[in-house]
């Protein structure tokens, strides 16, 4: 979930559009889970946020920080490594 949020926030979004984008990609996530996660990632320095007015309403926009970009790269490498391992394991299991 963290990885999906970080990937989505490579482009700036506010909470609702982020949630919607994740749900459209098949990863529905409720408000009570997403907002604490965003705060945690921000406190870890992976995200930056700012309140801004849009359509006459105040919205909090999030995007990946520079540290976040580096961490995302590492996480994606790890994820791809795990995926490759799993693929190999599944292929070996399929052979048996």
């Amino acid at each position, binding site marked *: 979930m963290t990885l999906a949020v970080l990937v989505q926030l490579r482009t700036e979004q506010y*909470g*609702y559009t982020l949630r919607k984008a994740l749900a459209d990609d098949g990863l529905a996530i*409720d*408000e*009570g889970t997403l*907002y*604490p996660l965003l705060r945690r990632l921000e406190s870890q320095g992976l995200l930056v946020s700012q309140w801004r007015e849009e359509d006459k*309403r105040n919205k*909090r926009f999030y995007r990946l920080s520079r540290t976040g970009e580096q961490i995302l790269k590492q996480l994606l490498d790890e994820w791809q490594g795990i995926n490759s391992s799993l693929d190999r394991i599944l292929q070996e299991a399929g052979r048996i």
Partner: protein
Amino acid sequence: MSKSSTPRELLSRYLQAVRFWLPRSRTQEDLLAELGEDLRSQIEEKETELGRPLDEKEVSDVLKRCGSPMLVAARLGPKGYLIGPTLFPIYTFVLKMVLLWILVPVFLFIVGPVNVASAGGRWGDAWANTLGDLWSGLFVAAGIITLVFAVLERTHAPSWSSKWDPLKLPPLQRPERRTSLVQTVCDMAFSYFGLIWLLLLPHYPILILGPAKAFLKLSPFWHSFYVPILLLTLVALLRSTITLVRPQWDWFPLSAQLVQTAFTLILLNFMIHVAGQTHNAGWHPFVILADSARNSLQYARVVAIVNVSILLGLISAWLAMCIAALVQCWQLMRYLRRRNPGAQQPAHST
């Protein structure tokens, strides 16, 4: 009670209810504002989809899907717990030890019998009071322990989790040498009862003399040996308690039992020796005639028989203890040999 309100007002009421349950913090208002914005966006999207403003029922559906204010606040707020995962295993261990292995036995084997003995025949009332006190005691103890651990959680837990040392872990348990739990608990219960019986004895000689209390009384001989006997019972109690709480000390039960047997032997030896040295009228070292029966020839014969019986009993106990000491020595040596097999047969190792 249903309150009629505009859809926007319903949303504000919802956020107000979430605010009530959300712990006060720097981020409280921030979180509420963000949640409010999310809900407003959901409502707005639905309105765009329908091409008209939502009514109260439809807004209510959006809020229902979000969850009850209490649940949403619990998800949004910081995750708090009274006792965390670092201390929780110690907490449950201490709770079990104090409640099950200390309070319950103390009330059943010490407080209960003392209450019964001092209740003047009202045994039912005495046990009811004891159980009532035990019930309250369990609650108070559990409350205090929880409070102490909650304080420790907030002051020491982070440092404890990093201070453990693998080298200080308890040694591997040897299941074949572990004393059985039932045996240890029985030992403990007998020691408790023995202790209570001994403590009550000076006030209630009937506990040892029975109906013979009418014409017999304990001699001053027992004044000298009362405290050592009491101490030995306490040692036995301590031994079974340590065996129970430190099952990994597999060396302890055998060694402690041997030490206790040795002290019992010394005490018995001394008692028999002192009894042999007694030179009162008619050799009555253990029990003497009560004042009311001093002139009775029949009772004089009884008191002589009782004294000889007690002496024979002491001698039998001494012999039994000698045999027990030999058996325990052999068991201890066998245990030590098993524990250090290399020392036993160094030549066969090549």
